């Protein structure tokens, strides 16, 4: 589903290499997790894949279902099926959550040459999905993420994911700022979307998210590269011993 080969990325504004040859393949139906110390390049990877400004790809490639991601505008990547759940979802005062969701859903449909969803169908769908995530009517009506708690913001990200039905979901530290109950709720939302046609890349610092969203493959990222890949047991190892042992082992 997602194929990344030898990806090298530096910041546009300064001559600083962040990713130094990332190789990663996420198959449809699988959940991959990336763990790694602060500054290892995890979030940069998610931004580069989704098309944020400020990064320059100096080498390598990334494709989604065979399509070259790096050549597309962010909205084209979304329409192609990529979704990034933000670590810090952005507040947009004055734009209703529903308006935002409907604009996004229909823009993607239009870009794919599909018919736009009617107001009635949309409303029905959003209500049922919101209910599963315990998002009430008031949260849907309020401006995007404005006045939302940390947990509400992350639930709202998962709601968008559920509405947009992407092929490939990247979750950037979705567990940050969540209490235990909220983490459970968000994880249930993600698990409900697990599907053999859909890939997941879960970026996290902590093993505990992976107790709820069980990964098939765990990668350790350090200094801009994937340095170790293994099964779920690798996450447990990090939890117990920290990164020092693994990093020492590679060095």
């Amino acid at each position, binding site marked *: 589903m997602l194929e990344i080969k030898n990806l090298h990325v530096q910041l546009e504004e300064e001559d600083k290499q962040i990713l130094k040859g990332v190789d990663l393949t996420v198959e449809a139906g699988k959940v991959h997790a990336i763990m790694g110390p602060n500054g290892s390049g995890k979030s940069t990877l998610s931004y580069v894949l*989704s*098309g*944020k*400004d400020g990064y320059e790809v100096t080498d390598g490639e990334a494709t989604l279902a065979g399509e070259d991601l790096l050549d597309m*505008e*962010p*909205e084209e*990547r*979304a*329409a192609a099926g990529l*979704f*990034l759940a*933000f670590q810090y*979802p*952005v507040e*947009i*005062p*004055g*734009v209703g959550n529903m*308006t*935002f969701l409907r*604009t*996004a*859903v229909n*823009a*993607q449909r239009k*870009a794919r040459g599909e018919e736009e969803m009617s107001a009635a169908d949309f409303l029905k769908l959003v209500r049922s999905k919101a209910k599963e995530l315990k998002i009430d009517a008031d949260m849907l009506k309020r*401006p995007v993420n404005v006045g939302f708690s940390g947990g509400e913001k992350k639930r709202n990200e998962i709601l*968008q994911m559920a509405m*947009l039905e992407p092929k490939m979901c990247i979750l950037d530290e979705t567990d940050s700022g969540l209490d235990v109950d909220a983490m459970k709720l968000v994880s249930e939302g993600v698990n409900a979307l697990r599907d053999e046609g859909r890939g997941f890349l879960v970026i996290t610092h902590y093993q505990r998210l992976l107790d709820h969203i069980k990964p098939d493959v765990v990668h350790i990222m350090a200094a801009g590269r994937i340095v170790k890949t293994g099964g779920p047991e690798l996450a447990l190892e990090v939890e117990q011993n920290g990164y020092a042992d693994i990093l020492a082992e590679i060095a």
Partner: protein
Amino acid sequence: MALTQVKQDATAARLAGLSLPEGGWSAGARKDALARLQAMGLPHARDEYWKYTKPAGLVAAEPAKAAIFTTDEAPMFDGLDRLKIVFVDGVFDAETSDDLALEGITIDRLADVKDIHWANGLYGVLEARGQDPVERPLAALNTAFATDGILIHAAKTPSKPINLIYRHGDESSDAILHHVVKVDSGASLTILENGPAAARFNKCLEADIADGGALHVVRTQGRDHERQAATHMFARLGKESVFKAFTLTVNGVLTRNECVIELTGDDAVAHVAGACMGDGDFHHDDTVFVTHDAVNCESRQVFKKVLRNGATGVFQGKILVKPDAQKTDGYQISQSLLLDEDSQFLAKPELEIYADDVACSHGSTSGAIDEDALFYLRSRGVPHAIAQDLLVLSFLAEAVEEIEDEALQEEILTRAEAWLSRHRKD
């Protein structure tokens, strides 16, 4: 101070083409206004309050032509139950207007000259008070030469709003209208205004709001690109009264909206807000003066301007708190969203406070589109141009939310969206 020769000449040139209308009860007020105008002269680019807005087009003897924009969009406020009063190029149009009758209020035309009228004693009076300490010569000119206008006395709360519709039919029209509104104690009145009015429009509204009365004004100034306008709102507020005004301006090479508010009774509330969007040859000026002269009053000024392709926005907003106006709560914010480097926003916030137990805050900002928000929207599949429009609406929201009535908020947002989609570059 004696007028400069330049001012004398410009004023004489403008007055040469005007004659005092048959005034009846208003004749005295008109003569007084003419004397005020001759003493101060018409505005000049060197005047302190005309530094950022060149008055030439507003004071010239003849108006510049303005082409008429036609559209198949539904007329503004079309879906609302309202009493329509239509002016075409500043001339009352009985055919398309409703009967000037509504329970609880009386409506007369300024042009229906009588010898006695309740508006005598208000007409030109609030305008004259508003000349101190800042001169507003175009308002004095208006009082002297207004050819028509509406005189509304709201003794009770009417069942629906009054909609003043200003149509533009002649490319060279020059219109001067003057309205007087008197709201009695306990009554609440809503006035809606829309339309480009004329190639050049000078409009004045004087509002006297008695203790416990309320006046809401929601207006839109569209859409003919070359039109020019100078408008004044003068409001005097009694005890526990409310005045709320909102203006949406899109297009127009030159618009100067002045609002002069006097809080004269305790616990009164005045909110004045505006949103404007300009693309290219667009100059928009909000000049506001709020005087707190009573205890525990609240005033808010909320102005938002979206500017691109060399458009210019001006804000001159003042809060004056007199020595006895304790417990004043004054707020003022003016913000611009500059969509490119060619556009500019000129802001002059002023506070002058003589009371010591007062909370007054003000702020003014200029900024670009929030790149993080733009990326967030695009990452969800929203195309760049539409994402930018959503963020423009997001920026305007704080001003639009100043309108109390949600249906009117919707109406304004619909217009703003239509403008954005007309000006969208895909």
